[in-house]
């Protein structure tokens, strides 16, 4: 199998289910286990595979977590543009994602906290006061329908017959 195709297949399998074992992957794509192991460790080393995490529906688990998307307008800095402030914001553990986007604002930040008040205070105290931040708009998330390609409340599956010839 071509190197690129092999890497692509492995990434696809792990993206779908990060708990697939090396031996299963080896079987699925028809190469030996050692080759899978070395390819994966290479992908990890290169930072292509960043981490293996579970996608959790906390709402369902009954653990209340409040999330908000924060739009930030920034003044870029002379030498580093948006990078230094974006990196600075990224360091807060309350911040779950930071993305530079085109359009009416510059950064889109996802923040998580236990209560609305906690999130609001975090934005007011830690983000808004930053020198490069010109203004912020906070959108509290009300319900998640789909995340990372996974639909949370799966539509009713049409039932296949157990036997069709």
């Amino acid at each position: 199998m071509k190197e690129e195709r092999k890497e692509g297949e492995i990434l696809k399998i792990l993206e779908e289910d990060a708990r697939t074992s090396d031996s299963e992957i080896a079987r699925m794509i028809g190469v030996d286990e050692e080759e899978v192991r070395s390819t994966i460790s290479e992908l990890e080393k290169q930072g292509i595979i960043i981490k293996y995490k579970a996608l959790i529906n906390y709402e369902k688990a009954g653990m209340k977590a409040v999330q908000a998307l924060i739009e930030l307008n920034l003044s870029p800095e002379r030498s580093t543009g948006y990078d230094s402030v974006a990196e600075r914001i990224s360091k807060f553990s309350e911040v779950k994602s930071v993305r530079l986007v085109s359009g009416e604002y510059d950064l889109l930040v996802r923040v998580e906290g236990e209560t609305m008040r906690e999130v609001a205070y975090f934005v007011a105290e830690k983000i808004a006061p930053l020198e490069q931040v010109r203004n912020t708009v906070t959108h509290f998330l009300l319900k998640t329908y789909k995340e990372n390609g996974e639909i949370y409340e799966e539509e009713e599956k049409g039932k296949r017959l157990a036997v069709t010839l």
Partner: protein
Amino acid sequence: MTLIADRVGQIKSSGIREFFDIAQRMEDAISLGVGEPDFVTPWSIREACIFSLEKGYTSYTSNWGLLELREMLSEKLHHDDSVYYDPEGELLITTGVSEAFDLALRAIINPGDEVIIHEPSYVSYKPCALFAGGIPVSIETEVGDEFKLRADRIEDKITEKTKAIVLNYPNNPTGATLTKKDLEQIADVANEHDLLVISDEIYGKLTYDGEHTCFSTLNGMKERTILLNGFSKAYAMTGWRIGYAAGNKDIIEAMMKIHQYTMLCTPITAQMAAVEALRCDDETAEMVYEYNRRRRLMVEGLRELGLSCFEPKGAFYTFPSIANTGLTSAEFAKRLLFEHKVVVIPGSVFGDCGEGFIRCSYAVSQYELKEALNRLGRFLVTCGVK
């Protein structure tokens, strides 16, 4: 008065039906007995169908099917398989390949004409030949020869009554494929003995090793081939019932005549959805990779459990031998269902030479596949295998 016509009465209802009824009703069984993709139809196709209903597309269409759909199909066949069919006269949209197969036989068979059918094979072929007044002539294919239909075996069966050969590769239930060279040898026989070939290529896109060769592309075969295909497997559209037949003008015209008086046209809603399916073609490749991964998982898994398993090169079925269990395939399937809640199809359903095999579909999620293999493993231990 005999209630039922002889033509129908002669077809015995399969003894396995009762088992299938139980399997259908058993709630928590894992089914490897499925003959359809485990995805629902892609949303863009469903959405296009809903939109067509909103716009009021609810009428009959041309008996031939929507011209737009035939034109797109013609282009697709030309692009994918380098074979050209005129959308006006050489292509007929049908209610699934099932209808197309029936039309093809009824269009060409005179009473007593013989139709060569390789086995193990899909369950409809023989009955349809009989319904059409023909005589099915079986050729058994063997696992030792990768379940291939061989040209010389066909020649052995040819009589002056032989009218057509039915070909279904990639094959249901074995997953076998034929190489271009294998097919060319069959084409030579068809030419030499002036035979038609009904080629059911519904699994053509699901080929994992090498390329699928469309039978019509072989030298001189376009005129002799009735090419059947559809949307069920490649676009996960089984319940929509939509397929097509392509062939020479006279035969397609004759098929249309029957279709016109019996079916009138394929439901417009399915046709509108099929138009969208042809527009969003690029998902097939990813689907083939996914099936291929499951295929390998299943074949290796079955072998590890101690079953000898032919390596399927197409479709989404494995056809392992269960000879070493000492059970018939029907017994095997029944016990596996009752004792371990896994549904498989006894190979005997697909012809006498399917005895000693079971058909396991890998059109199931990887989770179900692995769990089914676990249960099968436990069952095999009780059978004394491994």
